[in-house]
């Protein structure tokens, strides 16, 4: 882990041409545009923070961008207590789907990408093209076909129905192949073989370590992708105890005209679900950067 953040700003010469910053009109416009953009991206989140602290009356009766009788803990307590702690169950489900799914997706992608990069075998290019086609296949257009197939196999409304499709990441294979090609020297593999290491051992001890930055990227991509996915669990699951947060919150939101306090719970639930991911985004966006261009080199 520590290895990765060392590398982000590598060879760039330190602060090229550091001139004293003067307040030119150009700079004022620059800062103004960047600030307005920041406000735009933060407004819904800020509103969410304010709204989470309000009771149902002030939600409608007071100005949305300012606090009114804050009662954050009381509200959050309600969110968690409602319907036999179902929100907690949803959070755990989301973690399970995204966590397990992303770990397996990363491992499978790493192995496949490594094989495509470093072994010569018949059909290699064909397999690679076959995988690339999957990158361009729209995943939500797939959710319905998947549902049809899984219902034939009696897999719908199980944890597997969401987990299995989450493991597939053609884009992850693509990233891993490119990264493995660029970063794993053939001579290293040869040396390990000469030393008597088997292919599995080489993969587990050498390859996975060398590929860590790419794997972090694939893992994060897939984690966010699964966490944010809505269509797949929507078509697959009917038991609300198996729902991830996304699905659960929408059911609350949609039921709010029958059960008014659900509006408040939806807001509180959204607030809680945003905290860990927002924090992760802030911390991890620099890891992210490292692997992203890997995808854009195809020409």
């Amino acid at each position, binding site marked *: 882990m520590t290895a990765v953040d060392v590398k982000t700003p590598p060879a760039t010469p330190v602060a090229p041409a550091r001139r004293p910053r003067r307040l030119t009109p150009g700079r004022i416009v*620059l800062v103004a545009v960047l600030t307005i953009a920041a406000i735009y991206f933060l407004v819904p989140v800020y509103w969410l923070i304010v709204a989470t602290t309000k009771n149902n009356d002030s939600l409608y009766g007071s100005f949305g961008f300012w606090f009114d009788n804050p009662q954050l803990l009381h509200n959050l307590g309600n969110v968690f207590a409602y319907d036999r702690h179902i929100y907690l169950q949803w959070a755990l489900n989301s973690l399970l789907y995204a966590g397990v799914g992303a770990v397996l997706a990363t491992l499978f992608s790493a192995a496949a990408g490594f094989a495509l990069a470093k072994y010569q075998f018949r059909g290699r290019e064909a397999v690679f093209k076959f995988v690339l086609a999957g990158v361009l296949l729209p995943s939500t257009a797939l959710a319905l076909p998947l549902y049809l197939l899984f219902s034939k196999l009696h897999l719908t409304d199980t944890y597997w129905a969401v987990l299995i499709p989450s493991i597939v990441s053609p884009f992850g294979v693509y990233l891993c192949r490119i990264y493995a090609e660029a970063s794993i020297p053939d001579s290293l593999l040869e040396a390990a073989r000469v030393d008597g290491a088997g292919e599995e051992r080489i993969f587990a001890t050498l390859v996975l370590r060398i590929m860590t930055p790419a794997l972090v990227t694939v893992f994060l991509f897939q984690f966010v992708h699964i966490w944010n996915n809505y269509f797949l669990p929507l078509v697959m699951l009917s038991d609300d105890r198996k729902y991830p947060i996304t699905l659960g919150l929408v059911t609350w939101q949609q039921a709010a005209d029958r059960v008014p306090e659900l509006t408040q719970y939806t807001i509180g639930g959204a607030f809680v679900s945003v905290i860990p991911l927002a924090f992760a985004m802030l911390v991890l966006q620099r890891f992210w950067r490292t692997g992203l261009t890997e995808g854009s080199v195809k020409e």
Partner: protein
Amino acid sequence: MTTSSVKSAQPGAGDSARPTAPPKATGRRRTRRARPDRKAWLFLGPFLAVYLFAMIIPVFYAIYQSLLKVERSGPLGLGAPKVVFGGLDNYAIALQQDAFLEGFGRVLLFGIVQVPVMLLLSLVLALLLDQISDRWAGLMRATYFLPYGIPGVIATILWGFLYVPGISPITEMLGDLGFQPDFLGPDTVLWSIANIVIWEFAGYNMLIIVAQLKSVPQELYEAARIDGAGPWQIALRLKIPLVRPALILTCVFSIIGTMQLFAEPLVLKKIAPAVIPDYTPNLSAYFDAFSNANIYVAAAKSVILAVVAMVLSFGFLSLVTRKQRSER
């Protein structure tokens, strides 16, 4: 571990602007011994198995289902339903539904406007961030990227509250200024959805562009500066052409994303009557399968949608690469 991964990480991160030629073992004949290459299938196996099961087979299964239809026997069609081969009937049914085609038109219009606006915003932000000090750039980058971590449906719930009069401080503020905006009306809701999608993905696309900008050697800018280029010229003549691959990539992903538009309209449907079940092709297929219980037509619609998305993204890719070739 630390040293090895730090070192090996360099080529991947720094050189990524151009594809590194795979060090091919041609010319050098390897002695045939343990044949490690056989193990390739072992490593490919797990991925290929799940890929086939959860992506490829469903596609063919959907195609198969799209060719079936339910036929009722008996004189008045009241007999037991029977599934028979229907040829391309479902495709004909889907393509004759005006609402389904209008959904496609709506999504195309959406994409033609939303994708360029979003990518322009991402590009401008990326270029501007390149002009400020690293610390500020880091903070701003994180701020712009934040929405990507918020699931689309939750983003839609949030913006939904900001669109609905009575609860939204935005409509309240605009009302005080004398405006009566209707974010959820029949003419505006599509652009309200576009706003949500831009909000979610502009920062993510910006980050891809930033990553490409970072991979440009600084000497290039230095040289341009010595030749007398100002920041504007450097941005237009140097940086924008250099981030072209990133723009192409983000554009392809945006096209695919646009065609799949689903969660945002579905969630807004509750508060915006203008969002009908056929609002987007994906919604249309969903409602066919789950409300109208016609999975065969739904399958046909899914296939049409996937084909259109692939044709558009492939078409765009071949268009830009052909243009690139003729430029050279």
